């Protein structure tokens, strides 16, 4: 059984006041998220990440295709008992305190009074809101609201957690704590499906990522495979090499940067490294370091997002909106 599955999932919104015309927000999206993995849905603003999550919770309805959570069709509301959801920029009731709101959420899941008390206390502590447990939410900062949002998504001890931009509004400490929480959920065997446009978060937390741009899936795969596939060059640093040695190495490198006594050479992936090392050893060069330079998620993302959108003939540009 898959944790989340989308099959040709498509969403068209009607735009325009007088003459309505469809605007495709999500286009033929096929995803399969395994149980127990941390899955990142990446994309620039307006890529369709939030719409995808909203479709999974039937807040908007798919125009075509279908989706399943834990093997159940998304129209099956009882499956929500096993999932948690943090909406993008969440907002809660001003008149309630965090403790009251979590109790309300727990009541909707039908938790017993003992269980409710235990989980509410534990979650308030986990997200660092125990000091503010009685403060009305109208006095909360954006970061505190986000922390409460994460807590309410976990109140039912879900098997699958959906987090829409979980790091949004959090300070560096909060982001670190949220990252730790995601890794702890993974260690507990839970599936985490989160959307983000912050690539460093995805790189640090995800087992697999899918890249969405203008509603279309641009790539999907295991993060370590994506990154190791992308060894683009090797960096060789030499200590005080002779001019003759540098002259000999020049045809084998693509760039040379001199910093003080050290020279950093970039060797294209097509070049045979052993040949370069042979030349260095023969010229009695002192090797300081030899590093393969992997493609970062950012490089991969930029490559996918900046590439022409398949079939549209347009450049994928970062657009505004949700």
């Amino acid at each position: 059984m898959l944790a989340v599955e989308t099959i040709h999932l498509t969403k068209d919104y009607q735009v325009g006041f007088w003459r309505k015309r469809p605007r495709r927000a999500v286009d033929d999206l096929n995803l399969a998220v395994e149980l127990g993995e941390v899955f990142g849905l990446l994309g620039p603003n307006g890529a369709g990440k939030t719409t995808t999550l909203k479709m999974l919770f039937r807040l908007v309805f798919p125009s075509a295709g279908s989706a399943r959570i834990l093997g159940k069709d998304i129209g099956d509301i009882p499956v929500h008992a096993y999932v948690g959801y943090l909406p993008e920029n969440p907002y809660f009731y001003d008149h309630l305190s965090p403790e009251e709101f979590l109790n309300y959420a727990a009541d909707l899941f039908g938790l017993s009074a003992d269980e409710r008390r235990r989980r509410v206390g534990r979650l308030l502590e986990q997200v660092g809101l125990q000091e503010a447990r009685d403060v009305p939410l109208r006095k909360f900062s954006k970061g505190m609201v986000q922390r409460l949002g994460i807590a309410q998504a976990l109140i039912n001890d879900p098997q699958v957690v959906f987090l829409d931009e979980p790091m949004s509004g959090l300070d560096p400490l909060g982001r670190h704590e949220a990252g730790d929480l995601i890794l702890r959920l993974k260690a507990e065997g839970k599936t985490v499906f989160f959307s983000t446009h912050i690539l460093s978060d995805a790189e640090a937390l995800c087992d697999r990522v899918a890249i969405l741009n203008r509603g279309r899936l641009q790539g999907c795969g295991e993060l370590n495979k994506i990154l190791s596939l992308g060894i683009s060059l090797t960096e060789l640093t030499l200590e005080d090499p002779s001019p003759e040695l540098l002259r000999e190495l020049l045809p084998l490198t693509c760039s040379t940067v001199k910093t003080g006594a050290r020279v950093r050479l970039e060797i294209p992936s097509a070049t045979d490294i052993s040949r370069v090392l042979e030349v260095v050893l023969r010229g009695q060069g002192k090797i300081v370091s030899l590093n393969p330079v992997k493609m970062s998620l950012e490089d991969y993302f930029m490559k996918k997002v900046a590439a022409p959108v398949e079939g549209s003939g347009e450049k994928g540009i970062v657009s505004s909106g949700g």
Partner: protein
Amino acid sequence: MGSVRRVATIARHTFKESVRERVLYNLIVFALLLIAAAILFGTISVGIEEIILVNLVLSSISVFGLLMAIFIGIGLVSKEIERRTIYNILSKPVTRAEFIVGKYFGLLLTLLVNTLIMTSGFYLALLYEKRRLEAADLVPLGAICFILLQFALVVAVAIFFSCISTPILSAVFTFCLYVIGNLLGDIRWFGQESQSRALEMLTSTLYYLLPNFGDFNFIARAAHGESVPSYLLVSNTCYAALYVTVLISAAVLIFEEREFR
């Protein structure tokens, strides 16, 4: 069973939300002030003190409850959508029908508590006026029951309109329907007297189709010591229950199709 529990949870939360709205306290204080004023009017109306008191107090219970039913009712659903708090509810194992029904009963509970407070104020005023209460003083309770049935109907109308329209338009529609609903008897009479077959059919259709709020107005008769006949209590309760069921079912059907972008 789970469904009933979730509806009760949403109703309890809606009640809590309404109770914490400051406007509610203002309304209750204002209504209690009016009851105090009714005592004053009673004292200067020699011989008809009780009629004036019952008339004024029941009218204030009705008007203030009505204002709350309309103004809180139209915001019950739209506020949740506008502030996106609905995302947190519908992502839990809560159906849209449970959400609407829970909201409905939550506001009804608020109005019930509000009416109980005002009724207590009324009996305190009556006790002050007469120095002692007797069995005949329970007669206005029948009229208060009808006022509550009217609230049940108005809240359903307000929720129905708020599912298809903006809050301001919903308030206008609900208020207009309330006014028309109070005049339906006269409208039908006008049709019958008009000697136009088409007009008579139109007014009769309106009479049977729209909620007949006029049938729930027993204030003047209660003020003159007339008890609510039990057959009327039963028939009006059934009528209100049926109408509320139809309106809430229609609201649920519309809400089921709604997208939250």
